């Protein structure tokens, strides 16, 4: 929640006269979910006087929420992290694990975790995380195929065990012949990453 609040405040700082209503809405939401009613009330008081967010703000005001709003907030609170970790925002893995521990159905946290591994080119960690939090998806399948080929395990049985269609393997072969034709694939991203890393080493 702190990271969400931080990015809302940063956006507010960047908005004209530092008063963007959309960011105040975000701040109000964050504080309502966190149970910080005093801070939420401050933002809602400001929004209550605006044309487009006034009705919403009045409906969200602590003490004046209806049953549906209260259960919506309760549902959001149920997914919050229950263990305190002091972290720097550039290393989110432990935070994402904690989020998924609190709510394994948190699809956004799952996507962030898997994509964080992919962006770090860390396929070993990706395979560990994917085993715990599997999520079908083209990019993930492409990453799995790289890992399988790196470990000489590119057999039809292994490929299908991950729910990957064998036609994806053919596509990977075509990528090998013409990488520039497949710029929207993880293979292309990975290849470029490795190329840059090799250049830096030299």
């Amino acid at each position: 929640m702190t990271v969400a609040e931080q990015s809302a405040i940063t956006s507010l700082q960047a908005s004209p006269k530092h008063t963007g209503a959309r960011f105040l809405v975000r701040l109000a939401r964050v504080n309502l979910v966190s149970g910080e009613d005093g801070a939420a009330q401050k933002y809602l008081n400001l929004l209550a006087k605006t044309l487009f967010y006034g009705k919403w703000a009045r409906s969200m005001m602590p003490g004046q929420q209806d049953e549906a709003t209260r259960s919506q907030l309760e549902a959001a609170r149920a997914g919050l992290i229950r263990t305190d970790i002091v972290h720097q925002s550039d290393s989110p893995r432990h935070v994402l694990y904690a989020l998924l521990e609190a709510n394994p159905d948190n699809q956004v946290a799952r996507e962030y975790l898997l994509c964080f591994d992919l962006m770090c080119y860390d396929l070993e960690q990706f395979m560990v995380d994917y085993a715990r939090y599997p999520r079908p998806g083209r990019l993930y399948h492409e990453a799995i195929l790289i890992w399988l080929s790196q470990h000489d395990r590119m057999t039809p049985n292994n490929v299908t065990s991950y729910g990957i269609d064998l036609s994806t393997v053919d596509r990977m072969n075509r990528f090998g012949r013409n990488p520039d034709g497949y710029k929207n694939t993880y293979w292309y991203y990975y290849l470029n990453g490795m190329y840059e890393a090799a250049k830096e080493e030299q």
Partner: protein
Amino acid sequence: MKRGLKYLGLTLALCLALPGCRDAEFATALDGSAGPLVIYPDYKEVTIPANIAPLNFRYAMQGVRQAKTTFTLGGRSVTLRGAEVEWRLRDWKTFMADAAGQTVTVSAEAVVDGQPVSDQWSFYVSEDAIDGWLTYRLIEPSYQMYNEICIMERCIENFDETTISDYKHTDNACMNCHVHGQSRGDYSLFYIRGPKGGAILNQNGKLRKLTLNAPGMLSGTVYGELHPAGRFGVFSTNVILPSFHTMAGKRMEVYDSASDLTVADFENNKMINVPHVARADKFETFPCFSADGRSVFYCVADTLPVPQRIHEVKYDLVRADFDPSTGRIGEQVDTVWSGRAHDASVCHPKASPDGRWLLFTVADYGTFPLFHTECMLYLTDLQTGETRPLDEIKGDKSDSYHSWSSNSRWFVFASKRGDGQYGKPYFCHVDADGRMTKPFVLPQRSSRFYVYNLKSFNVPDLGDASTGITVRDAARLFKSPNEAFSQAE
């Protein structure tokens, strides 16, 4: 003309019809007063100095109509009408002219949701005046970024506010808070950061821009205080790291991965570094001088890996001798209050100018209590050595940075009580026996100021006179070269 009037009428009609133009109170004012009529700011049953600006407030309730507020003092009465109780400065000053030592009673009547409601409260006007000037940094409570920071000076006897330094004249540089030496208006220091920045020292109105850094130091100076005699300043040097908490309701944690103490000699442009307050196995920080300038109080903790073990970092409050002729901090260290023994951590010690009291902040752990809701102020009687928590003034959120008035009868502190996000300056009276009164927030011209304000008041610091520093001075210094400091032999 007729056409113009038509458009004006249409605009007014539209405005009245739109919910966005209604001015109504929707909140229940979580940090408002108790009683049948809730007021914000809460000025009920407070003690105030006679020289304070008008205590403007509003009735922070929904559906308040026909409000009438009568202030009575020694047979004289002043009645203000409306839900926003805002004094004319001249009327307030006339009313308060001989109020010192007396109690002002306030009777209020209003119609709330169609029902008549009345309330009565009072406030006591102390015979002890408060220093008339308050400096603070206005900053959005962001955790990693800043934009458009300024350091302000407010005359708290009225509503005059001037800018000491702002982003417009300093290439949007970061600037850190302004602190007075011994609450003197003509003796103070603040930092402008960045390549062209430096420590701006104000000595008897003469301004200098200093680079308080020398080879071998961890960093430039950070927290500190000026010596009463004017030659020295004691500072910490810190490697500061910000991090986030994952738990909802906890926000930011700032900690040092290393910190030492140093002394700046402003006469000889030397940094006096001694190894016993720059130990690798200790974090040393938040130094301040005793009133007589012969001791340094500071906080010290064992060095631990952070942030992994941040919850175990507990700072003790200690005292060491200070030699005002050489600027050296003594090797003998006495513990004033052990954080470790109390499973707590001490920050921001400040000695009262009369030498009687030492005020400091206590949190569960760490060195940054601004977002620690458990943190509160403690007071040590330096005559008896007794220390007590100031439970009677604790807010529901953090109470942190504080500063004494020159007569040692008032102090100001930054509190996030209420919204938990925006620090506001609160004033508290302390009598000769160390008894506190209910704190009150800095009065503003508009009773709705704190509703609309989206900036934190950072490091409020009291001064007995205006610093006289203007943005032009800050801009001139920003462009001028720094005075270098070197390591003392």
